[in-house]
């Protein structure tokens, strides 16, 4: 009993020490999406940013919807997300300021190489979904209120199909991250919508192939948003701004453009000072 207590105190001591040692470093918390983490982008980019700014970034990788919730509560300093309507709502409600569009990639349709719905090479996203819906071909939805999920729902609207009415039949709502959804799609040989970065770095493809791409509506814009320090005074606004400055600087933008997986640039930098929502 006494030994247990002693052990607990020692462990508590060491843990407290390691934590206070870390607390002295300057770090910010960035709530971001699973796609940026799963693609390995942060492991490449954050060390470069730290070398330049001295700021360590702790990343919480969740869906865009959850990232916005975390930021709304003040549990993160900065957001890197990809759902413009949701972002604008967040900024307009006063939760965030200084929204900067920093980079983009695109969504692609992947599915079994037998392609039962015949979508291969089709560059019209609405036509792709119409084909899948009419064939009642198996389709997996993230259904996790992420940026990808919100984009997928807008595309179904464009196709004029109420896919969620078919939920549980050919249309399956997973409520899972991008990687888990791709794992499931590989196992069930289903179609799904994914961002290109996660797809390129995904290792467990099974019989899945990239089948359709290229519609402008599949454009996937990532933005930085600073959590409003007036609403949450504890936010490390200065350090977060410094990181934002780096990511939107010429050096930062060039660094983004140099991240290449499988001969493909995963995220294309596109910061324009005029695309800033103050």
């Amino acid at each position, binding site marked *: 009993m006494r030994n*247990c207590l002693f052990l*607990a105190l020692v462990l508590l001591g060491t*843990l407290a020490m*390691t934590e206070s040692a870390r607390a002295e470093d300057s770090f910010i918390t960035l709530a971001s999406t699973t796609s940026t983490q799963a693609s390995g982008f*942060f492991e490449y980019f954050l060390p470069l940013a730290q070398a330049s700014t001295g700021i360590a970034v702790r*990343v919480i*990788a969740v869906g865009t919807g959850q990232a916005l919730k975390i930021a709304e*509560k003040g549990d993160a300093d900065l957001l890197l997300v990809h759902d413009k309507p949701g972002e604008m709502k967040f900024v307009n409600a006063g939760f965030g300021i200084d929204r900067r569009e920093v980079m983009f990639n695109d969504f692609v349709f992947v599915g079994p190489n037998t392609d039962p719905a015949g979508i291969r090479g089709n560059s019209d996203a609405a036509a792709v979904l119409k084909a899948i819906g009419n064939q009642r071909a198996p389709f997996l939805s993230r259904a996790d209120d992420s940026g990808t999920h919100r984009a997928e729902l807008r595309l179904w609207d464009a196709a004029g199909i109420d896919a969620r009415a078919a939920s549980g039949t050919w249309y399956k709502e997973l409520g899972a991250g991008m*990687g888990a959804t791709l794992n499931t799609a590989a196992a069930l040989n289903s179609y799904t919508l994914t961002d290109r970065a996660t797809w390129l770095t*995904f290792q467990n493809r099974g019989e899945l192939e990239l089948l359709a791409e290229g519609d402008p509506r599949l454009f996937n814009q990532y933005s930085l948003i600073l959590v409003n320090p007036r609403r949450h005074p504890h936010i490390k606004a200065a350090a977060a701004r410094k990181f934002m400055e780096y990511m939107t600087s010429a050096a930062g933008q060039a660094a983004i453009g140099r991240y290449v997986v499988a001969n493909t640039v995963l995220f294309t930098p596109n910061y324009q000072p005029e695309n800033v929502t103050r």
Partner: protein
Amino acid sequence: MKELVDAAQMAWQLVTQSDATLIETVSLSLKVSLLAVACATVVGLSLGALLAVTRFRGRKLIIVTVNALMGLPPVVVGLFVYLMLSRAGPLGNWGLLFTPSAMVIAQVILVTPIICALSRQTLEDLWVEYAEQLRSLGADPGQALRTLLWEGRYSLLTAILAGFGRAIAEVGAVLIVGGNIAHVTRVMTTTIAMETSRGNLALALALGFILILIAMLVNCAVFSLREFRTPRAA
């Protein structure tokens, strides 16, 4: 099948090369879970002993509640601790969210009912057997309780190991309150979940093997302690 072989090979490589990230992740896993189990042992054992040897109104209700809490879903605990520690929550100004401390807190909540319920059962059975004898020998209640803890030490140790097993294997709660931040709150289980989502199934499985290995080492250590201490019959 191929994945199993790949995973075993990868696990072997990671261990033999003593991969720096692996060591960091493993040691954080152990630190968090051992600390959580230590705290849960102090609380759970005390409460378990109290419930075992005392009789008061509402005692049975507490026992039923504690037993039921053994089945707490980790995600629910994670969510609860998240809401408490969030900047918008009541303990927000502690600034503990997304730190190892938050993970310890969540695991303490998960593990305490297990240790409490199992030790309560052990100690109550012993109490029925020993209470009169110890009183007759002249032990006061405090001495009697200490005797019971010692007499039941192996069963109690098993209860604590059950708690440790739950803590080290749990992913739902630590993912929510820790955030799986690289080098800060990334532990074995959250790494496994992340690698699975990247489709690195072999690596995820390899890490799973290593996790089992660690759990076995901890159990071996406890078991050898027991072998060493038990007086022989012959």
